[in-house]
């Protein structure tokens, strides 16, 4: 059931579900920090600041009228707060990224990472259990062997479905700086992890060592000018990966060229527009996310004000640029003071790479239809959350002439930000994370 996937104007987005507390008083541990669909789209994982992972599963329903709902499948504590005694620093348990492994057997595997440690989790179902032990009662108490008069073979009997999550591998102690990305290679054997200055290559089975493939730490830290902000493997070429920097550049590296990929194969950089220069030019040009398209021909980058699509064959400039919230350009000073300018927005592609999506403030999120050159602004809010209610497009008015239903820039709530979004790999189903709620929207099924 391949989704249409195209045309943000053809698609009418409807509210489907919202997960999380209704409370306005948000507990810090409940703040969602990452959202990721698995490769089939059947499972949706979220990570939060408290180090927990919650996995939702799409129920398979036969009703044609509506798509299936996502219900809680498994919840587990992935990371705990730790303390680095040498540096006297606390290591946050916040889950920075979750990445699903391609499914090989009945169990599901995912990688989750906090600032320092990556863990491989196995999520498996148990729906049978052995019954009829000779030396144990059903409740586990041991039977006195002297009272056993006959022997029987234990048999498997059905039980209530139990979903178990167990840590299978812990990849620790490889990063001095804070991990910002993990990415699984298309070879299904290796993955990379990136921190501010280094990128390491791991084998999924080997936890006691990793290979450093990128190191941009200068000999003298005072000469530091840029850091790594995101990294990702190419979806098909197992030798290729990209990493973005705080200066707005993206480097594509080929692991076949040399063991240490400090020298890039391609450098993607757009010359800065001198008329836009300000104190904050450097901050807003810092790339917060980079994602390859599913077909592997393009990549998308997100900086503070825009989304850019790059053709891997052209390094000089992006092929498409979409302004997410250009009306904020004049507000950079205030956004610097209230720290919003440091917000790291993510971006994502739809299944057939025709539409891209990213978040903004006031619980708005934006979709850009590449083919039709159209964009839409939608809102994730409880007000618009009646089942199957169609989302109304929103508009922000930059100048003083506010029309009806428009919102002025000064009325935007900068505490309500959508940093994490995910798009189902095949269907028009999206998961949008507000501070502590997860909204699921679907296209209107007629």
């Amino acid at each position, binding site marked *: 059931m391949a989704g249409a996937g195209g045309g943000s104007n053809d698609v009418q987005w409807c509210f489907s579900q919202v997960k999380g507390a209704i409370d306005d008083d948000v507990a810090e541990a409940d703040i969602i920090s990452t959202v990721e669909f698995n490769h089939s789209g059947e499972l949706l994982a979220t990570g939060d600041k408290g180090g927990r992972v919650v996995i939702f599963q799409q129920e398979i329903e036969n009703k044609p009228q509506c798509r299936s709902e996502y219900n809680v499948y498994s919840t587990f504590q992935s990371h705990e707060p730790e303390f680095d005694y*040498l*540096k*006297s*620093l*606390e*290591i*946050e348990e*916040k889950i920075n990224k979750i990445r699903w492994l391609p499914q090989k057997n009945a169990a599901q595997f995912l990688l989750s990472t906090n*600032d320092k440690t990556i863990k491989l989790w196995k999520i498996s179902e148990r729906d049978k259990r052995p019954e009829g032990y000779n030396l144990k009662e059903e409740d586990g108490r041991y039977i006195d062997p002297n009272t056993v008069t006959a022997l029987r073979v234990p048999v498997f009997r059905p039980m209530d479905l139990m979903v178990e999550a167990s840590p299978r591998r812990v990849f620790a102690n490889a990063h001095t*700086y*804070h991990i910002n990305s993990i990415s699984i290679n298309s070879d299904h054997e290796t993955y990379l992890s990136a921190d*501010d*200055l280094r990128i390491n290559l791991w084998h999924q089975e080997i936890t006691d060592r990793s290979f450093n493939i990128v190191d941009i730490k200068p000999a*003298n*830290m*005072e*000469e*530091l*000018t*840029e*850091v790594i*902000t995101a990294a990702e493997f190419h979806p098909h070429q197992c030798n290729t990966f990209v990493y973005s920097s*705080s200066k707005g550049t993206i480097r594509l590296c080929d692991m076949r060229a040399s063991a240490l990929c400090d020298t890039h194969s391609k450098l993607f950089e757009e010359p*800065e527009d*001198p008329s836009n*220069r*300000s*104190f*904050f*030019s*450097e*901050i807003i040009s*810092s790339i917060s996310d980079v994602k390859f398209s599913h077909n592997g021909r393009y990549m998308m980058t997100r900086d503070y004000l825009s989304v850019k699509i790059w053709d891997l064959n052209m390094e000089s400039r992006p092929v498409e640029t979409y302004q997410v919230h250009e009306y904020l350009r*004049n507000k950079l*000073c205030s956004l*610097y*003071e209230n*720290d919003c300018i*440091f917000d790291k927005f993510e971006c994502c592609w739809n299944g057939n790479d025709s539409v891209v999506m990213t978040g903004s403030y006031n619980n708005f999120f934006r979709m850009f239809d590449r083919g039709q050159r159209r964009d839409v602004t939608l809102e994730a809010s409880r007000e618009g959350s009646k089942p199957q209610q169609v989302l109304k497009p929103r508009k922000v008015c930059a100048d003083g002439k506010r029309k009806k239903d428009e919102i002025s820039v000064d009325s935007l709530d900068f505490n309500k930000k959508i940093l994490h979004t995910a798009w189902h790999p095949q269907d028009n189903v999206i998961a949008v994370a507000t501070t502590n709620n997860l909204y699921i929207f679907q296209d209107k099924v007629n």
Partner: protein
Amino acid sequence: MDVSAEAKRIMAVSISKLYASRAQRGGMRLHRSLLLSVVMRSARDLYHSACLAKEREELGTAHLVPVTPEEDAMDTTASGEQVEVEVSQVEPEPESPLTPTIQEPMSFDSEATQGACKTRTFIAKETVEDKENRSPVSPDRHSRKRRGKASVAPDFLPSKRARLSLELGEERVLRTGGRTCCRAGDVFTTLSLNSNRAIAAF
């Protein structure tokens, strides 16, 4: 002057943020610290140049040399991160290092009203700082004691001094700039050098 007040405010905000980030769970974030120090340097450069311009105006010995836009491409950000005296991207000056030779054209006010904060090339800043960053003469340079009025932080800044490098266990880069500050009230040099340490300490 409007722009220098704005630059001063941004510097103060940046410094408070740098101090506050030390108390953050998970430790100082390198990326954030880098961006903060970049903004702080730009603001400091602008402030210095505005002060210099004002001073020169008062002295009546203005040397006006136009600065091409290309020159300030990334230098206030990139070279700002590097050791202070690196002026490779800017035209070398024939005069003695102590004589400031580049001056910001007096176009601040119009830009300030537009709300844009433009950065400029500052050779003058480099040479003045050179003087401040000379090798220390005094023997107690390791001492953390305050040295005098010049190094006392003004009211709008947090009262605690940074102890960034010791906290993170790295060898402290020894700089005394600002402790022998020659200009009263020029605390921005002191505090911005702490931002050097903020990065160096990682």
